């Protein structure tokens, strides 16, 4: 079809007709959802803590899936904003992650209505020891926490903020999808999924949709980037940092949104490797693309370690009591130190060491394995932030705690696979009409120069 593309996109379009989630992925994800429901129910009724650990696990699952889903759009806007070509073959896969965002918003609503009692500042808290007073310790201080940490204000800003971000994402997503869906619909005819019309509006003007789509995508870049930084910081401060109501770190928001993006990048690498044949994009997903994602992940592991270290070193060094408590519980108490050490290995030492190898970044299954390791590592990292603030027992000897936290997260992962997998099955898995899917003429020139030599 396209004389410009390095490889013919027609087989990619033809494969959309009648495609559904592969049977193995379907069964596995449904099983994960089943485990998740069982684990959450176990936590609610068998932990004997009024459901604190279960809702904490729910929060971790929510934050994990929200990060993955939002990070996909962030990857796409980075490609748009930097005119990057290397990542275009996986841009649509990244964009498809956003289809989970409305589900995440509903899950956030559920958590805010039913799970808000895990916050110690909430007057109706279920946390051991009861609600803490938020009144300042000094008569000279301005009262901020009693204003900021009130249930209705808390719920309202979270729902509005995350909702606004999702709305911006979908403006971008629609602009990116429309020309591709028009093009693919023309080839597929009646076999095209019916819901595409809600985006294409029955239009047949690919060039017009592409022109306006590229302009809209470019316009949305700064808005989404700014909203992402601000709203994910708000999510971090509210949903995670306020679990320890007297602890504060002004780096915490930045640390969270950076690590969230890294998690999403690992998931993108995993889905691209695992779904390559299913989506028929093998000819486009050459080893140089995998290699580049691997390099970005290597940089991500270093940056995660940098932000973690840069945040924790001043706290440890200055040793001020209102700050060190957070660190002491997680890094020094034997009950949690094992998890801190595991997170350091899973999120930095292992991926950093392994990804230094050029070869492994180009090998499909080993690379998918590293991506899975980081995905699990980020679950452990979020658990390390959340659980020590709400669970005061010894997790090493508590199987119910382990089952509740891990199983609930698996349930969220299963749900994410169901939603995103079904969306991706019905989408063109490549940005078909995007001119930046092409190899840059300079690169062509370099190749020809090489050939000449």
């Amino acid at each position: 079809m396209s004389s410009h593309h390095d490889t013919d996109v027609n087989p990619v379009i033809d494969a959309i007709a009648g495609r559904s989630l592969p049977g193995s992925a379907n069964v596995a994800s449904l099983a994960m959802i089943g485990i998740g429901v069982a684990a959450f129910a176990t936590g609610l009724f068998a932990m004997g803590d009024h459901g604190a650990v279960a809702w904490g696990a729910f929060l971790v699952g929510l934050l994990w899936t929200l990060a993955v889903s939002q990070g996909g759009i962030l990857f796409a806007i980075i490609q748009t904003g930097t005119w990057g070509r290397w990542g275009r073959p996986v841009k649509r896969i990244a964009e498809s992650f956003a289809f989970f965002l409305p589900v995440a918003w509903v899950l956030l609503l559920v958590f805010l209505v039913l799970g808000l009692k895990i916050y110690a500042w909430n007057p109706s808290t279920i946390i051991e020891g009861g609600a803490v007073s938020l009144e300042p310790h000094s008569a000279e201080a301005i009262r901020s926490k009693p204003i900021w940490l009130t249930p209705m204000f808390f719920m309202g800003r979270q729902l509005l903020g995350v909702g606004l971000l999702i709305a911006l994402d979908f403006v971008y997503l629609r602009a990116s999808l429309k020309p591709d869906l028009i093009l693919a619909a023309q080839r597929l005819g009646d076999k095209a999924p019916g819901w595409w019309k809600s985006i294409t509006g029955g239009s047949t003007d690919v060039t017009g949709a592409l022109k306006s789509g590229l302009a809209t995508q470019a316009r949305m870049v700064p808005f989404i980037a700014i909203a992402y930084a601000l709203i994910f910081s708000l999510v971090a401060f509210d949903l995670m940092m306020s679990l320890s109501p007297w602890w504060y770190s002004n780096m915490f928001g930045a640390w969270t949104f950076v690590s969230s993006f890294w998690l999403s990048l690992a998931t993108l690498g995993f889905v691209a490797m695992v779904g390559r044949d299913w989506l028929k994009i093998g000819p486009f997903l050459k080893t140089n693309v995998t290699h580049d994602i691997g390099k970005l992940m290597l940089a991500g592991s270093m940056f995660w370690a940098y932000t973690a270290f840069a945040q924790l070193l001043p706290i440890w060094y200055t040793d001020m009591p209102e700050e060190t408590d957070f660190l002491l519980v997680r890094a020094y108490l034997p009950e949690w130190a094992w998890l801190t050490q595991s997170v350091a290995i899973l999120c930095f030492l292992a991926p950093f060491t392994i990804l230094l190898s050029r070869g492994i970044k180009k090998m499909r299954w080993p690379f998918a394995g590293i991506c899975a390791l980081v995905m699990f590592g980020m679950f452990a990292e979020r658990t390390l932030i959340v659980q020590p603030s709400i669970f005061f027992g010894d997790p090493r000897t508590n199987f119910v705690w382990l089952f509740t936290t891990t199983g609930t997260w698996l349930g969220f992962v299963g749900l994410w696979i169901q939603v995103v997998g079904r969306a991706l099955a019905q989408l063109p898995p490549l940005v078909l009409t995007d001119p930046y899917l092409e190899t840059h003429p300079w690169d062509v020139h370099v190749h020809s120069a090489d050939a000449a030599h």
Partner: protein
Amino acid sequence: MALVDPIDANDPGRPNRPATYGETNRDIIRVLLKPTVGWAVAVVLAAIAMVYGGWCWYQQFTWGMGVSGYHPPIQWGVYIVTFVFWIGIGHAGTLISAILFLVRSRWRTGVYRASEAMTVFAVMTALLFPVLHLGRCWQAYWFFPYPNQRQLWMNFKSPLMWDVFAISTYFTVSAVFFYVGLIPDIAVFRDHSRGLVRRVYGVLSVGWRGTHVQWHSYMGSYGFFAAFAAPLVLSVHSVVSWDFAMAPTPGWHSTIFPPYFVAGAIFSGCAMVISLLMPMAYLFDWHKYVNTWHYENLAKMCLLTSGILTYAYGMEYFVGWYSQNPFEQSIFFWRATPTADYGWAFYLMVFCNCIAPIAWYSKKLRTNHVSLFIVAAIINVGMWMERFNIIVSSLAHNFDPATWTTYAPTWIEWGVLIGSAGWFSFWFLLFSKTFPAIAITEIKEMVAPPVRGH
């Protein structure tokens, strides 16, 4: 089916390249010829500023630190502010040369050599200030890990000591990276010169002949240095930020300081590249190699880092308020009070670093040379003010109200500041006249190769 032309006239990746290798050589070597009046005037002005700064330092050397505005508890003033400022300026060079090399960014080609030179000279300038700040500068060797006669070592637990190691490492790696990149281009200069000049370039080009083996080693080492230098971009200013963040001083003890300082350094560095390269491009007629495409990309880097800085300022205020720590709340409230001693510094900082760069969201303004030059200059003022705001206001308004005071730099300190700008400009101007300030080798990579039949 061609839906759109993949490389249209407005494509940001549009090549801007000379026609032949010979044209590239001629254009860049031309700077070696007779100096222009503009260049000579600039050198004289830089030399005057440098001499004036030296004379001010001599006054301090003779009469002691009393000639500065330092007084307890404000013992860090213009010298430390300017030290951090120049270290920050030194960041953009390695960012542009190393990090943009690793991410295969095309626009770096025209500007990276001058940016690297800027890095080396900016760090050389910054290194003057700890010595100046000492007062008794003849004891500057105490900075080095060298015990006294009682085997007492310096305090390795001090962030100030970490700074010595971080900056000296950064300077060493940046200088080596800079020199390695220069070798093939110096060889071009050697081949186009005669007599003593040729011999000097011959020594500096370390026997470069452009053989296949040499290119192979060169490319390998260049990639290695790029990968090695990239983390240093983050580490150096992070360590500088810990000079402040490790202290419990209100307004200093902040976990966000490392990335905030790094972003600020890149912000000021990119603005300085615009401020330096634009006049140079006019002075040496380099428009074919350094032009609006490069300035626009630098402006976009500034926009991104301005956003990060604005975010960091906002987070400091939000968490300061949220903390319910009366000291944190007090310092941030006081800084932002327009009628307070340093309210003007705070609002000038916010205007220069957060508001003025917004102009560059308009493509028209970020591709207009006058607007680019003016906003870049405003950013440089703003980044100096940011360090002044952090350092001075926190010391002036510490825990104990009985120690609250104000600080005003004396003419000696202003003189040294002007002298540092002269010192930096002097070296940069000399470099641009004697070495290739635009990378000949990489420009040639964009030129269509002379293949037979074409």
